[in-house]
């Protein structure tokens, strides 16, 4: 039983990691806490849903469209919200407030479009196959999710550490002014980081939408708290940190739900956030270096 819960936690955690990666990257690189990230995730799920139901596309195609679509929503956020703010000398607080506003708009649009109903992917969208292992059962869906997340994370690491655009992104993360002096075009980097963050969120959205068989306009809000803990625990800007912390949080949440109660799982997650902020706010991995202390 425990092994089964841990496995379930691993899978949920992997998706949390996927979702949180985008958030932590954009914050680590640009000091932008994008509170509309949850809405991007939600739009990814919706785009995937409509690609299947209205477009009649097979799942794999819908997934790709959703991922790209979410990337574009994310880039639009930067283009219409964060970039004008930067141009008008906005500060960090300004980006937080603006992202709250953007989140609201994206959510309201989705609410109006779906009449606040819960949508479900068509039955049988993903084959239901189980494999029996000692002490637990693993479904094909879970295997595919884990594989997909692993591939995506590796792709991200490859991008960051092996491509020239990736190294430009890392330079901007350390210091934007210096990077500009070295000839990096920050606009290109902003575009890339927001696009990638959006893609990651969109992928997580489709996966979660199928795994939990529900797509609603509030689904983004439900995962934001977990994402917060993940990015703090994992260290702002750290890819490895987000992955490991995501898995840890996923497991903790699953275990709490299974052995204590569903209601308390949120409180436990928040309690964890509180403790981490108290004893180790910089997280357990230093990623792209950001200063955390004020006084």
């Amino acid at each position, binding site marked *: 039983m425990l092994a089964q819960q841990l496995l379930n936690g691993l899978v949920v955690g992997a998706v949390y990691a996927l979702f949180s990666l985008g958030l932590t990257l954009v914050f680590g690189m640009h000091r932008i806490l994008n509170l509309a990230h949850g809405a991007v995730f939600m739009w990814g799920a919706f785009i995937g849903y409509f690609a299947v139901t209205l477009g009649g596309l097979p799942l794999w195609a819908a997934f790709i469209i959703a991922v790209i679509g979410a990337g574009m929503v994310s880039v639009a956020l930067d283009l219409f919200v964060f970039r004008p703010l930067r141009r008008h000398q906005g500060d*960090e607080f300004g980006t937080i407030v603006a992202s709250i506003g953007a989140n609201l708009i994206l959510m309201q649009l989705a609410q109006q479009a779906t009449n606040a109903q819960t949508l479900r992917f068509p039955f049988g969208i993903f084959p239901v196959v189980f494999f029996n292992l000692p002490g637990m059962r693993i479904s094909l869906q879970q295997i595919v999710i884990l594989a997909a997340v692993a591939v995506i994370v590796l792709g991200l690491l490859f991008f960051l550490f092996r491509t020239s655009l990736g190294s430009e992104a890392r330079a901007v993360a350390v210091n934007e002014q210096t990077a500009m002096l070295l000839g990096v075009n920050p606009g290109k980097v902003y575009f890339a980081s927001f696009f990638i963050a959006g893609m990651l969120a969109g992928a997580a959205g489709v996966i979660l939408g199928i795994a939990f068989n529900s797509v609603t306009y509030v689904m983004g809000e439900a995962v934001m708290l977990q994402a*917060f803990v993940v990015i703090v625990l994992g260290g*702002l800007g750290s890819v490895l940190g987000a992955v490991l912390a995501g898995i840890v949080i996923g497991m903790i949440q699953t275990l709490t739900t299974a052995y204590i109660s569903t209601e308390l799982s949120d409180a436990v997650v*928040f309690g964890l956030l509180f403790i981490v902020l108290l004893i180790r706010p910089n997280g357990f991995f230093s990623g792209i270096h950001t200063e955390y202390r004020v006084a």
Partner: protein
Amino acid sequence: MSFILTYRPLFDLICIYTVLAYSQYVALRAGLFSLATPGFASIGGYAGAILLKETSLGPVLSAIGAILCGVAAGLILSLPLARLRGAFQSIATIGFVQIMVSLALYAQPLTGGPLGMNAIPKVAGTTVLVPILIVLAALLAVINRTGIGRAFDAIRQDYTVAMSLGISVSRYFRYAFALSGAIGALGGCLLAFNTYSIQPDVFGFPMLVLVIAAVILGGRSMVAGPLVGTAFLIILPELIRPLADARLLLQGLLLILVIIYLPQGIVDSLSHRWKLRRAGNGTRGAEGKGAHELPSA
């Protein structure tokens, strides 16, 4: 007469939400990125309602009890957050608001769960709300003009400079958290004592947005700011009925536009412009001293 009666509930709501906006205002004034106000309001609302209904403490003592709970919550939040930078404060306080909603939903025996608490005696009518609001505004005006206001301004505008002048940022953050908690709890308590009932979702995201929009729109420096912002946000949907449905969408749009193009808010921008004009008149003869040059940086 019937005009007043028709609009009284709206007026009451403006008073109550201005109190809540003041809770947010205190935090922002001090440079604290806290969004915890709805959480404080939840604590104050439920504590006040429970004390009033279950004990014989009466409205005043119940309200004081609620406020003290708010102070305690603020101080607890300040334990990790007073020495961390902005983004962390936002993350933690948003989480805090969410948890408070969860707790209110699930602590059924205490809070009545999703149905909330009902039949709360209306002990905070307009005649109570207005004096409370005036006293609160006066208190905040005093704070603004004394040492605390000076320290808050410095910390908000440049915390490194503030520290280089000997200001202990964490001490003032703790104070701001406690004060924000007290005022937020007061607002929540007034909401419970005026509207007969409270539910968990009253203290959720919509309140968070309204309160932050009110302060951003109205202004986070002068005391009149939150009042102007709240009044605007509550009255506008009433004036233009079709807009009322798209209320949240508009608030979102407003937040973005204001924070980009009028970040100081209405009241502070007007006051700033008035100060410039007044000073410009006085120094017209000192052209040569470079009073009108703006630095190129």
